[in-house]
């Protein structure tokens, strides 16, 4: 049913769990029966130093998130935003049609987390400005 790589990542996800010191968090799904996904990032000078995830999700969701974490780690945020569903499929192999939504959600989760980083940065900048005044 699933490729060997999906099954391997599902059974032993390297990037699953909590991430202490995360300064950006993305959360998607959790409604209408969609899997709930949460991505934690540590971003320093626009570079993603570490990425981890948690999910209330199926085997494909776990595998997809694990690969997204691998692919965005070490990249600057602009490049990380460009990591696509196709890049994940290249690694995982074929994903059944009825599970494609997990891939869509995973990609959305990365974008939401990086957006969260920008929002926080903006807030920090405003706060710094206020202090300076």
């Amino acid at each position, binding site marked *: 049913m699933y490729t060997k790589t999906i099954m391997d990542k599902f059974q032993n996800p390297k990037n699953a769990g909590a991430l202490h010191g995360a300064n950006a968090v993305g959360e998607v799904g959790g409604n209408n*029966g969609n899997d*709930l996904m949460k991505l934690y990032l540590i971003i320093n000078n626009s570079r993603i130093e570490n990425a981890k995830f948690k999910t209330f999700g199926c085997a494909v969701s776990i595998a997809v998130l694990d690969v997204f974490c691998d692919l965005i780690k070490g990249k600057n945020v602009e490049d990380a935003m460009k990591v696509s569903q196709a890049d994940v499929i290249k690694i995982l192999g074929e994903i059944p049609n*009825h599970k494609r*939504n997990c891939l869509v959600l995973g990609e959305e989760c990365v974008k939401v987390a990086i957006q969260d980083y920008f929002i926080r940065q903006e807030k920090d900048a405003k706060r710094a400005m206020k202090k300076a005044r």
Partner: protein
Amino acid sequence: MDRKIYLDNASTTYVSSDVIEEMTPCFNVMYGNPGSLHAFGREAMALVDKARDRVKEAIHAKKANEIYFTSGGSEANSWALVGVAKANANKGKHIITSQIEHDSVLKTCKYLEQEGFEITYLPVNSTGLVNLPELLHAIRKDTILISIMSINNEVGTIQNIKTIAKIAHDYGILFHTDAVQAIGNLKMDVQDMEIDLMSMSAHKIHGPKGVGALYVKSGVSIDPIIFGGEDQERGVRGGTENVPAIVGFGKAIELATKNQFVNNKIIKDIRDYFVSKLTERVQFIKINGHPHQKSNAIVNVSFYGVEGESVLMLLDLAGICVSTSSACTSKSSLPSHVLKAMGIADDVAQSSIRFSFGTNISKSDVDYVVDELDKIVTKLRAISPIQAGRI
């Protein structure tokens, strides 16, 4: 992993050796067409008649010719609804069913809606029981049929079939029940329970797949949905009789009812052992369905905070076969319609697993299953954003 533990008996069962033994000669020795006049045909017809008698005895029908063989439970359900609706449309076009029926009933109802029939889908309470006052409230002058399943396939709740049938008859309405999960589990006596139509399936009771039956009480008007030979199933269900499967079904239902008491006791004991071990070992779980008015064979459990399919897949890797009715699929990944109708929250429904027991499960099997469940649920909870204790 060599160990294989099958806990999906509500999905299907193995065919028992006694059943296989009776079926085998029907493939290459007694292979006639029951419709043929010659010796081979007469021999095959005698086998079908014997099977029909066995089904009649098992459900205590008045006459054997009230039993019509079908390709299984889904055909029996589709036929009962469409056949009765079409044959009785002059009396009314309203049908009552419940929200937790099998898809073969619900989808047939959707079809009938397109054909101009009106369907009332009765709600159920949190234990899965149809609310009887709601049923009374739904009955109209033009109601022609009430169809309520005997045992729900997902949670195992047993409906008050005898009472519902009585209510139906008080108002001159026909009563159908999908008894696919009930045969061999409950004593289904169609005369005592005043059932007009009843769907059955062989493969849930250690018979072969692809065969079942519809009981239609004498005098009930039903139109055919499969057209064919005049001699096949008294002209209302076309198609050459699947003799080996019918013979297997006859044997399977005979054994299931004969051994019902003993099997139920064995299954109940192992089910109780499983539930006590599980509740002892794994925290934050919810057992769905009625606390006692339920099938001994089915245990539906929600493991808070973890997604059902992930549990199923990891159990499968450990050689344990279970099922889940709610899974995340494409865009509209709807949780089980049964759990939803019972008012169970989406994420709790999505974390449910159905364990369905057979007589061949040992205590050591259960110990192994609970050990694996403990490990799997702990592992998945560690990576879940939902904290189980908080739900």
